């Protein structure tokens, strides 16, 4: 395994100050997924080709408009990783036949929501890791099927209200641990990021870019529309996801899992929950102590294992 050199992104002041992603996208005002994507794109650069599975971000590149500076391929929900294989192979053949130079090569980047990544597209993704495909996977995880009206997905957290879990206890399932599932395939890299922690995000994307093979990124993406909160809170909710320990920032590299930011003195999870309409039923009309402590206990157990 090659040594990873020092980061260019030591602090916020080292972050890019120019924006590559075009303005004028049809994403919601305050979309956390778009925030993460623009931060990632600033690091990745223009020499990228995106492969997107149906979801909110699909609407970004609708003829004749695109916010990207390079190509874009749209696939069915389950097939973006297969599309990436096709593009990677095509690029390799073009290079081999000297129809393009090595310098003209592109990073192949899969971009999907959690509906694809945690559910429909998981099998195709597993195949790419098995074949050691050289690509980057970015899942913007808004914890539901955002584009079709926030139905629950395999990424929806326990107790959250979605348009298909409207009852007083919200979603009865639990968020799938995609990080662990991906890491179990032993790909080159797996990391969790969030737009509200731009330095941590930049370092991870920088690291991923210097590697070969499957590099897998999950970006928790606060979604004002699906999570039901005022769009101005997107970054605050993201910061709270980290401070309460709901969203552990970590990476899998060389067979090891490293936590890149351990929240000392974790804040109670309700600080995070209370800002979001999808958890309102935990507080009103009466406080549901049982459910709130159930959620808190799960987080505590996770971190006890890490901290000890």
């Amino acid at each position, binding site marked *: 395994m090659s040594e990873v050199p020092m980061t260019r992104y030591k*602090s*916020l*002041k080292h*972050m890019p*100050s*120019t*924006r*590559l*992603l*075009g*303005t*004028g*996208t*049809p*994403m*919601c*005002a*305050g*979309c*956390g997924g*778009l*925030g993460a994507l*623009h*931060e990632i794109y600033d690091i990745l650069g*223009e020499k990228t080709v995106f492969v997107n599975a149906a979801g*909110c971000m699909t*609407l*970004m590149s609708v*003829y*004749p*408009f*695109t*916010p*990207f*500076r*390079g190509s874009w391929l749209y696939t069915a929900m389950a097939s973006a990783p297969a599309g990436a294989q096709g593009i990677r192979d095509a690029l390799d053949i073009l290079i081999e036949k000297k129809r393009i130079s090595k310098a003209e090569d592109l990073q192949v980047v899969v971009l999907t929501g959690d509906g694809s990544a945690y559910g429909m597209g998981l099998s195709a993704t597993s195949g790419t890791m098995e074949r050691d495909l050289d690509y980057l996977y970015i899942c913007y995880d808004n914890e539901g099927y955002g*584009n079709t*009206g926030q139905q629950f997905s395999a990424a929806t957290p326990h107790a959250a209200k979605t348009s298909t879990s*409207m009852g007083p206890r919200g979603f009865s399932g639990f968020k799938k641990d995609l990080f662990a599932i991906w890491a179990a395939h032993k790909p080159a890299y797996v990391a969790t990021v969030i*737009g*509200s922690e*731009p330095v941590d995000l930049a370092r991870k994307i920088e690291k991923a870019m210097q590697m070969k093979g499957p590099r897998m990124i999950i970006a928790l993406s606060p979604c*004002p*529309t699906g999570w039901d909160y*005022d*769009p*101005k*809170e*997107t*970054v*605050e909710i993201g910061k709270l996801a980290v401070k309460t320990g709901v969203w552990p920032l970590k990476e899998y590299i060389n067979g090891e899992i490293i936590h890149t930011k351990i929240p000392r003195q974790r804040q109670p999870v309700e600080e995070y929950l209370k800002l979001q309409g999808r958890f309102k*039923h935990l507080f*009103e*009309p009466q406080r549901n102590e049982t459910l709130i402590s159930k959620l808190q206990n799960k987080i505590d157990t996770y971190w006890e294992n890490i901290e000890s």
Partner: protein
Amino acid sequence: MYRIRFHGRGGQGMKTASRILGTALFLEGYEIQDAPRYGAERRGAPIFAYVRADKKTINERGIITRPDLIIVADDSLIPVPAAGVLAGIVEHTVLLINSDESEQTWQHRLNIRNKIITLPVETEDRAELRFIGATCTGAASRLLGIISLASLEQAIKDELAELGPQIIDKNIHKAKQAYEKVAPNENCVSQGSEITAGKYLPPDWIDLPFEAAHISAPNVWASATSMKVNTGVWRTLRPIIDYERCNKCWWVCSTFCPDSAITVDESGQPHIDYDHCKGCMICVAQCPPHAIETISEQEAAAQDKLKEEETTS
């Protein structure tokens, strides 16, 4: 047949409003259709929804081109071409606008003689905005003059059942208030005439020759063409940087703006691109020295106008 069109922004509950009105009409014995225009409902983006109601079978389908009543949740949409608020307006079309400006002002501005009824904007608090739907539905019910208070109340209960009694009560309260407020205009909406298939004129088709895929397939060769889309019209609130207080930090605002709408110049000073800023207000919430202020888009437009006048005089 009654043909009613709702205009609003994603997040203002126009889809729900159209459902409530549809259900209320159904309870009054009408056959109804209610549907939002299909598409993703993005926060802030213009959206519309339709209701048709008739005592006989409704055979008409699709979008409403000749509305009898147009309901506008947000008056900043009226000048936005993409919102199509005035599309297909005919002589008897009534407009119900949520606006602080008077009926006369709107008639003058739009250069129309149609009946216009305005409901004053009660709040700029975005959390309260979700009740605009109830207000609009309440008022519309009275303007149609065929919906009783009991049916209106029942429709709200049916459609919002999942939101719990508190929210339902608040919606009923808002709807009733509006129902009372527009009482003088009761029954001012009339039914449009029948549109029969026989009178339908096919559009002027243009014959396109079959071309090879490399010619006919859509390709975009320029980069970031989305900049041509003016998402600034989505905004109801405007962030304004106070350069005296901005300490040119490490561009917290620019990094966190999801829409790439804040650029930083060589001196480290941030600039907001108002053609594209969607007004999410993340920059306002995150600026460390609180150097970004919020003003309503209406107020901002008035200030712009004043400045313009000063420079021209």
